[in-house]
Every structure is written in structure tokens, then in C-alpha cells.
């Protein structure tokens, strides 16, 4: 990628922001960098809203008995925490990265459909508002769990309808975003930027976007069927009318498992950019990384029923889904091996992005290992719906994806804003987050193994110690994120000026051929790669 011969298309350009200033700039913008920024701030706000709900959950679980909220509201909290974190925080965060980075990394001037890009983003605040408004309608927000399982969803109040429409909007936004990403990558790459020369972040997003196009409509179909069951007399999932609630679970998880990788693959992409940069070595096994990512994506469509071993499926079915699930460990293992091999004999340095990347490596792998435990049908029947599962998926999502997100923010913030963050505070953020998030979730393995069920606001006395520790960890992690906000704001206001190539090992186009901060318009004249 260092062979770009013409990379100065931006030089003639004024750094203007289009026709509007102030708030109208952000509402009407079609610039991929502006839209990336909008996605990232939106996702951080949702991260705080979903986080506040997590605090309510952990506050109630601090000690046995019911102290702060009634069980119904507790269920609403767990449901909305899950929906907001998955669809409002993590997914938009990585779409924000995609918007900022993909055009710059492939040498394109912008996304392929710039106006649709604006629309993709501006749907999100309305969807999030529907979710929040559902708390204030009769019956409150749905308390059915983020998986929106029938038959509860058929019986819920009007808050459920708002949630269904919110899911529709979120799905439309994701699909439009994916169409934009696929089209941009397939059609707008600079001459010489072949698919196999793209930075791995672009590859992981290309594959993720296909997953989204294939999986999101299935979720939309599932919630539409729920809607017609509720209001139009159909009985897809309503047993009283001859429907089957388990059918909902099959359809939901046919979307739900690819969704796990929709979140994880872009995180892998970020890590695959950060680790080589701070190892001062090219990524080990680039081609095998691409194939492993594709293999994970394909396998993600044939493992869905491992979420439902307890519904009473035939043993043959359990065996198929068990073997298919354990198979995913192979390409994932390839990736972990490649990241470690990239660091092997590298000139390593441990700035904040690298700390978060290494944290990701250890903790995501730990989450993957408990995933393997849960993939075994015989074991899962014991652990299903216990805190062991909660611990497992939070290691993958709340630690894996979120740590990759932090690694990416610290890595690219200097390039985006032209200002460096405070390295000492960044390291404090890493260590506080790592200690507290492990305190929160590691102990949940033990309460889960001892049989504590999830989504319950009260519990027997025997689980008290684990829950107290978990709650203390959660409050600490929540507070640590205020430090992150302070670090970002401090960098924006009075951070030191960043260099064009802040990280000497970074080798993608945005570092090697664009100034810092990146101008508003970049690569309007296509660069040519030798």
C-alpha cells in the first residue's frame, strides 16, 4: 500500500463543509467523515443510555430481595439494555468506523450513495426514540428479553408495537448502510487496490455487510409475523391458533447467530489494523485471515439452534448444531493464531490502542472458550439461561466488541481530529475498564455454574457474594467510561497536534498518504497503486 504514486488529489481543495453551517451541516451532510462522526457520537450516547439501564439491573441485584425496582420494570430494563446495546451502541459504532475509514482505505472520494448514507444514519435517532418512548405508554416497554420471544410478545402492550417498528427502522438503516458499504468496496476501489490488497478492516466489513443483507430481513420478517399475530388474526407463533412459538426461536436465531458475527467481524477488522501497527510488522497470514473471516460468516448460518438445545429437538439435530458450532473454533483459532504470530518477534510498543487490542485478544478468546463449553449440548442443558451464558456473551460483546471499539477510537482519533489524546489517561482508562469489567463478568461464571438463572431480579442468599462483586465491577466500569468521555473531549479541545503518521507501523492509505487531520474531502482524484 505504500506504492501509491498520486495521492495529492485533496490538495486543491478548500476544506469547506458544504452549503450549511451549525446544526444543518449535520442534518444535511452527505460527507462520509461527518456521517462517521454522527454514528460514533450516537453510539456513545446509546452506550451511556444502555449502560444506565445496566446500572439499574446491577443495583437491584446488589443484594437478594427486591429493593429498587419491581420485577416487571426489571424485565423492561434487561430487554431494553440488550436491544439498545446491540442495535444502538455496538452496531452503529462499527458503522461509524466503516464510514470514516473504508473510503480512505480503498482510495475512494466518498461512499457510493452519499445521500442514502445520510438517510441510513438519520433513521437511527427515530428508532431509538421509539424504544425510549415505549417506557411511557400503557404497559410500559416490553419485558420479554432482547430476543423478543413469542408467545410473550403476542401478549405485551402497545410498547411492543413501538419496539417492532423500531426494529424495522434499525433493520432498514443497517441494510442501506450495508448496500452502501458493499457497493463502495466493489466499485470504488482505486486502480491497483485489488481485493486482496485491501486493509483487513475493509475485508471484514465487506463480509459483515453481506451478512447484514442476508440476516436483517429475516429478523424483520420475524417481528412482522409477531405484529400480524398481535393485530391481524394470524397465528404464526400463537399456539391457540395452531401456531408454534418455537418457530419464532428458529427464525430469530437464524438471524441472531449471524448477528453475533455482524458485531464480531468488524471488531476483528479493527484489531487486525491495530496489532500490526504496534508490532511494526505486516499482518501475519493476510490471505488466511480473509478466508477465516469468510468461513466464520458462512458457518454462522448453520449453527443457530445451539441457542435452543432445551426446546426439545431431536438428538440428531443437537449433534448437527453441536458439531457445526465447534467447527467455528477452527477459523476463529486461525485468527487468534495470526494475531499472536503478528506480535511474535515484532518491535512491540504498548500505547493505549495496543493495550485495548491485547485486552481484546485475551478476553475475547476467553469468551470464545466458554462459547465452546456452551456449544456442547449435554453441558448447555445444565447451563442454559444461567449467568454462565450471561458471562459468556458479555465477554464476547461487552468486552470483545467494546474493547475493539476503544482500540479503534484511540488508534484513529489522532488521524480524524488532528489531536492526540492523553496517553497516561488512556492507559488509566484501559486498566480501570479491564479490572472492573472482569470483576463484573468473571464472577458470573461461578454464579451461573451454581445455577443462578438470568433475567430474575431476586435470588437465593447463596449467590449474594458473587452478585455484590459483579455490581461493584459494573459501577466501576460505568464510571470509567466517563473518564473515556473526558479523554476524548480533552483531546478535541486541547490535545497536542498529531503527526501525519502518528503510529510508525501503520501502513494503510489514511496514514501513509493523507495529512493529519484528514481534509474534509479526500481522494477526489483517484490515487493509483502500483
Amino acid at each position, binding site marked *: 500500500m505504500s506504492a501509491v504514486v498520486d495521492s495529492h488529489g485533496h490538495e486543491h481543495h478548500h476544506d469547506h463543509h458544504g452549503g450549511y453551517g451549525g446544526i444543518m451541516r449535520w442534518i444535511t451532510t452527505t460527507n462520509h467523515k461527518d456521517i462517521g462522526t454522527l454514528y460514533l457520537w450516537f453510539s456513545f450516547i446509546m452506550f451511556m443510555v444502555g449502560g444506565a439501564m445496566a446500572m439499574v439491573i446491577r443495583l437491584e441485584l446488589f443484594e437478594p430481595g427486591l429493593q429498587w425496582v419491581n420485577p416487571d420494570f426489571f424485565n423492561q430494563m434487561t430487554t431494553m439494555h440488550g436491544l439498545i446495546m446491540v442495535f444502538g451502541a455496538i452496531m452503529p459504532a462499527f458503522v461509524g468506523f466503516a464510514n470514516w475509514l473504508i473510503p480512505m482505505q480503498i482510495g475512494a472520494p466518498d461512499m457510493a450513495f452519499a445521500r442514502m448514507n445520510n438517510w441510513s444514519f438519520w433513521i437511527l435517532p427515530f428508532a431509538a426514540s421509539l424504544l425510549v418512548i415505549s417506557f411511557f405508554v400503557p404497559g410500559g416497554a416490553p419485558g420479554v428479553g432482547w430476543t423478543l420471544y413469542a408467545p410473550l410478545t403476542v401478549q405485551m402492550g402497545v410498547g411492543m408495537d413501538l419496539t417492532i417498528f423500531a426494529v424495522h427502522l434499525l433493520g432498514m438503516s443497517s441494510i442501506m448502510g450495508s448496500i452502501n458499504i458493499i457497493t463502495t468496496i*466493489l*466499485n470504488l476501489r482505486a486502480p491497483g487496490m485489488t481485493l486482496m490488497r485491501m486493509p483487513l478492516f475493509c475485508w471484514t466489513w465487506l463480509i459483515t455487510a453481506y451478512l447484514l443483507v442476508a440476516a436483517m*430481513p429475516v429478523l*424483520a*420478517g420475524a417481528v*412482522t*409475523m409477531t405484529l400480524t399475530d398481535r393485530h391481524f388474526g*394470524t397465528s404464526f407463533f400463537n399456539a391457540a391458533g395452531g401456531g408454534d412459538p418455537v418457530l419464532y426461536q428458529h427464525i430469530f436465531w437464524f438471524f441472531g447467530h449471524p448477528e453475533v458475527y455482524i458485531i464480531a467481524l468488524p471488531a476483528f477488522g479493527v484489531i487486525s489494523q491495530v496489532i500490526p501497527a504496534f508490532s511494526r510488522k505486516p499482518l501475519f497470514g493476510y490471505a488466511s485471515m480473509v478466508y477465516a473471516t469468510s468461513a466464520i460468516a458462512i458457518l454462522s448460518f448453520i449453527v443457530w439452534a445451539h441457542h435452543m438445545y432445551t426446546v426439545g429437538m431431536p438428538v440428531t439435530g443437537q449433534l448437527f448444531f453441536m458439531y457445526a458450532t465447534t467447527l467455528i473454533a477452527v477459523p476463529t483459532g486461525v485468527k487468534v493464531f495470526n494475531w499472536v504470530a503478528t506480535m511474535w518477534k515484532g518491535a512491540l510498543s504498548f500505547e493505549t490502542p495496543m493495550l485495548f487490542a491485547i485486552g481484546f485478544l485475551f478476553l475475547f478468546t476467553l469468551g470464545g472458550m466458554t462459547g465452546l463449553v456452551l456449544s456442547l449440548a449435554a453441558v448447555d442443558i445444565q447451563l442454559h439461561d444461567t449467568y454462565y451464558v450471561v458471562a459468556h456473551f458479555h465477554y464476547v460483546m461487552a468486552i470483545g466488541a467494546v474493547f475493539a471499539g476503544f482500540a479503534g477510537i484511540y488508534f484513529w482519533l489522532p488521524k480524524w481530529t488532528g489531536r492526540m489524546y492523553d496517553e497516561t489517561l488512556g492507559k488509566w482508562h484501559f486498566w480501570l475498564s479491564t479490572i472492573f469489567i472482569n470483576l463484573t463478568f468473571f464472577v458470573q461464571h461461578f454464579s451461573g455454574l451454581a445455577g443462578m438463572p438470568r433475567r430474575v431480579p431476586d435470588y437465593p442468599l447463596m449467590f449474594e457474594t458473587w452478585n455484590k462483586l459483579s455490581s461493584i465491577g459494573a459501577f466501576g466500569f460505568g464510571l470509567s467510561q466517563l473518564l473515556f468521555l473526558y479523554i476524548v473531549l480533552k483531546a478535541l479541545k486541547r490535545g497536542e497536534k498529531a503527526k501525519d503518521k502518528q503510529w510508525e507501523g501503520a501502513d494503510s492509505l489514511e496514514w501513509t498518504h493523507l495529512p493529519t487531520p484528514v481534509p474534509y474531502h479526500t481522494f477526489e482524484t483517484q490515487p493509483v497503486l502500483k
Partner: protein
Amino acid sequence: MSRNLKTALALVSISLVSFIGIIVKFWILRGS
């Protein structure tokens, strides 16, 4: 028709077929 538009239409078709297909499939299978 531009290459971008063709790519977008192909992807929209996949999503629509997936969305409508899954509802129609279980509608027809209902009761069977």
C-alpha cells in the same frame, strides 16, 4: 444503468426476497 445502481438493486432484491420469502414460507406452511 450505472454499475453502482446495478449492485444496489441486486442487494435490495436479496433482502426483499429474504424478507418476503420467510413470511410467505411460514404462511403457506401454516397448519401443515
